[in-house]
C-alpha cells in the first residue's frame, strides 16, 4: 500500500485571510490525504484565524481530506489546558496532540500525536497507542534505524516529516519579540513579518536557524525524496509536508509522483529547488548525521 500524505499545520503567523485561502486551495486542488490545522506555537495567535476555522475545516472535509486539529506545543496555564479539554470533547475531527497533557485529555479515543511529543521507542509508542494514539508523527531527530524499529512495532500508523523546516525547540520566551527589543506581552505580533520564519545567521554569516516566535526551526528544510522507497519498505504509513509559502500543491504533487515512481528523485529535487529557492535541503537526521547535513546518496541501511 502506498504511503499517505499529511499536510502539517501552518507553523507561522500568516495573515488570517492568507491562512484561510491557503487551506481552501489545499482543499480544492491538492492531492493530500490529511490536513492539520490549528495553532501549535503561540496561543496569542489563535484568535486571528479562529473565525475562519469552521469554514476551513468544512471545506477540507468536503474535499475528502481527513482533518486533524493540532494543539499547542507548550501549555503553561490552566486556561490553555481548559481549551484543550474543550477540544477533546469534539467528535467532528481528529485531534493531534503536541503535548503529553493533551494526549491524556484524548485517552480512550482515536487521536494523533504530533512530532513534538517524545516518542523515541516502542515501549512509549505502545503505551500511548493503547490509549488511542493511532497516528504518530515521529520527532525529527530520529535516525532510520529507530524509525524502522518503531514502524515494525505495528502499534500505530507511523508518520515521518519529509518536507519543510524542522521544529527544533520551543520556549516560554519569544525570540521574535526579543530580536525586535520587545517584550512577549507587548510583542506587536512581529512574528507576522516572516511567513517562513526569520533567518538566524552566525557571526560567520552562515545561515543557521530560523525563529518563529517562541519556536526555533532549522534553517534548512528537510527533504526526504530519495528515501521514500525506503520509508515505504520500512512500513511507514504517512509522510508529512510542513507548510511554507512556496507552492505546496506542487510540492505535494512532486512527492506523490516520486512515491508512484512517475518521477525520479533527482528531477523531483530540481523541481522543488525551483519552487523553494530560499530553502536549502537536508536529510542528515534520517541518516544518523547532524540534521543539517545533506547526504548525497541515500543508503537505506544507515542509521
Amino acid at each position, binding site marked *: 500500500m502506498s504511503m499517505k500524505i499529511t499536510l502539517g499545520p501552518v507553523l507561522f503567523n500568516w495573515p488570517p485571510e492568507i491562512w484561510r485561502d491557503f487551506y481552501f486551495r489545499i482543499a480544492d486542488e491538492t492531492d493530500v490525504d490529511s490536513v492539520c490545522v490549528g495553532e501549535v506555537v503561540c496561543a496569542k495567535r489563535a484568535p486571528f484565524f479562529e473565525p475562519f476555522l469552521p469554514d476551513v475545516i468544512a471545506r477540507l472535509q468536503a474535499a475528502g481530506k481527513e482533518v486533524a486539529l493540532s494543539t499547542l506545543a507548550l501549555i503553561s496555564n490552566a486556561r490553555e489546558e481548559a481549551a484543550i479539554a474543550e477540544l477533546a470533547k469534539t467528535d467532528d475531527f481528529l485531534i493531534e496532540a503536541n503535548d503529553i497533557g493533551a494526549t491524556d485529555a484524548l485517552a480512550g479515543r482515536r487521536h494523533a500525536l504530533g512530532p513534538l511529543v*517524545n516518542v523515541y521507542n516502542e515501549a512509549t509508542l505502545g503505551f500511548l497507542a493503547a490509549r488511542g494514539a493511532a497516528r504518530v508523527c515521529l520527532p525529527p531527530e530520529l535516525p532510520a534505524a529507530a524509525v524502522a524499529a518503531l514502524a515494525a512495532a505495528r502499534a500505530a500508523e507511523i508518520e515521518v516529516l519529509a518536507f519543510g523546516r524542522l521544529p527544533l525547540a*520551543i*520556549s516560554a520566551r519569544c525570540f521574535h519579540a526579543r530580536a525586535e527589543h520587545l517584550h512577549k506581552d507587548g510583542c506587536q505580533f512581529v512574528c507576522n513579518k516572516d511567513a517562513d520564519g526569520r533567518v538566524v545567521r*552566525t557571526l560567520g554569516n552562515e545561515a543557521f536557524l530560523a525563529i518563529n516566535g517562541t519556536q526555533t526551526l532549522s534553517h534548512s528544510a528537510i527533504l526526504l525524496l530519495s528515501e521514500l522507497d525506503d520509508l515505504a519498505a520500512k512500513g511507514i504509513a504517512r509522510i508529512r509536508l510542513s507548510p511554507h509559502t512556496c507552492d505546496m500543491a506542487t510540492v505535494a504533487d512532486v512527492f506523490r509522483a516520486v512515491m508512484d515512481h512517475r518521477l525520479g528523485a533527482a528531477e523531483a529535487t530540481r523541481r522543488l529547488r525551483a519552487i523553494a529557492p530560499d530553502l536549502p535541503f537536508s536529510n542528515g537526521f534520517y541518516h544518523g548525521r547532524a540534521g543539517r547535513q545533506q547526504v548525497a546518496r541515500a543508503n537505506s541501511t544507515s542509521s
Partner: protein
Amino acid sequence: MTDTRQPLELVCPAGTPAALKAAVEAGADVVYIGFRDETNARNFPGLNFSRDEAREAIAFAHERGAEVYIAINTYPRAGDGRPWRDAVDDAARIRADAVILADIGLLDYAARTHPDLRRHLSVQASASHAQSINFYARNFGVRRVVLPRVLTVPEIAALTPTIDVETEVFAFGGMCPMAEGRCSLSSYVTGQSPNMNGVCSPAAFVRYEERREGLVSLLNGSVINVFEKHEAAGYPTLCKGRFRVGDSAGYLFEEPTSLSVAEIVKDLMTAGVTALKIEGRQRGKAYIAEVVSAFRKVVDAAARDLPPPAGEVAKLRRLTEGQSETTGAYKKSWR
C-alpha cells in the same frame, strides 16, 4: 520557634564520588548522580558513576543521613532499550532513594518491575502543567516532578495545589532557554542530542580559533561566538551564542548567565515547592562544596523567615558563569 517552616530539600549534583562526598559534607539533603553511560543527560567523558561507585556513594550518603537519586533521563533507543532497563534494575538493586526518569516507556517499566522504587519525573519530560503532571502521577506513580524552566513563580503557585505530587525546581547553575527534553538544536548541528545521547553541544565538536575579529568559538565548524579581548570566552553551548538576525547581532536566545534563585527562595516556598535542585554534575568538587554550603544557609534562613545571608548571596554571585545571574523564567520579564 513557631515561625520555622520545613526547609526546602536541597538536591545537589555530583559527577564523581569526590563531588558526592563534598556535597554531602556541605549539607546536601540529596545528591543526584548518573551511571557512566548514555542513560543520563550528562554523559560526558570522565564523569558519572560505575555501579560499584554508585553503591558505595549510596552507603556513604545514607550513613550521613543524606539520600541519593539516580538520573536515568535520556530517551531509550528504539530497538535497543536494554541499557536503560538495566540502569533502572541496578538502581533498584543498589537501593537508590529514587530514580529520575523522563521516558514514558521506561517509567512504565520501572513502575511495573520495581513498584517500590520511588520515581521522579525528570525535567527532560517537560511536564509544565497539571494535566501532564497528573498523567505521569496516575499512570506511573510518579511522586515528584522536576518542573521545566518555563514557569513563573505565580504560575508555580497556581500549579502546586492542582497536582498530587511534590515539585522540585532548578535553583542554581546553567539554564536552558528552551523547554528541556524538547530541543534538537544540538543534534541538528552536531548529530548528538540531550534526548538521545545525553549531551548538548558536545566538547568533541568544540574548537576555539584566534582570528582578526577576536577569539572565535565554533561548534562543528559553525561560529557560536566571537569574544573581544576584555571578554571571558564561554563554552559554545548553541543557545548561548551570539547570532545575527537582520542587521543586529547579539545573544538571541539567552545571555551567558547563570540561574540563581538565592533571593527568591521564600517565594518558592510560599508557592508550594518541595525541593531545590542545583545544576552541575559536570562541576568539580570545590565548586560543589561552595555552592551547596551557601545554599544550605540560604535555605535554612528562608525556613526561619529570614532574608538570604548577604555573604552567601555574594559568594553565589561570584560563582556564576560570566559573573552575571538571572532568575530566568521565574520572572515574567524573562519572556
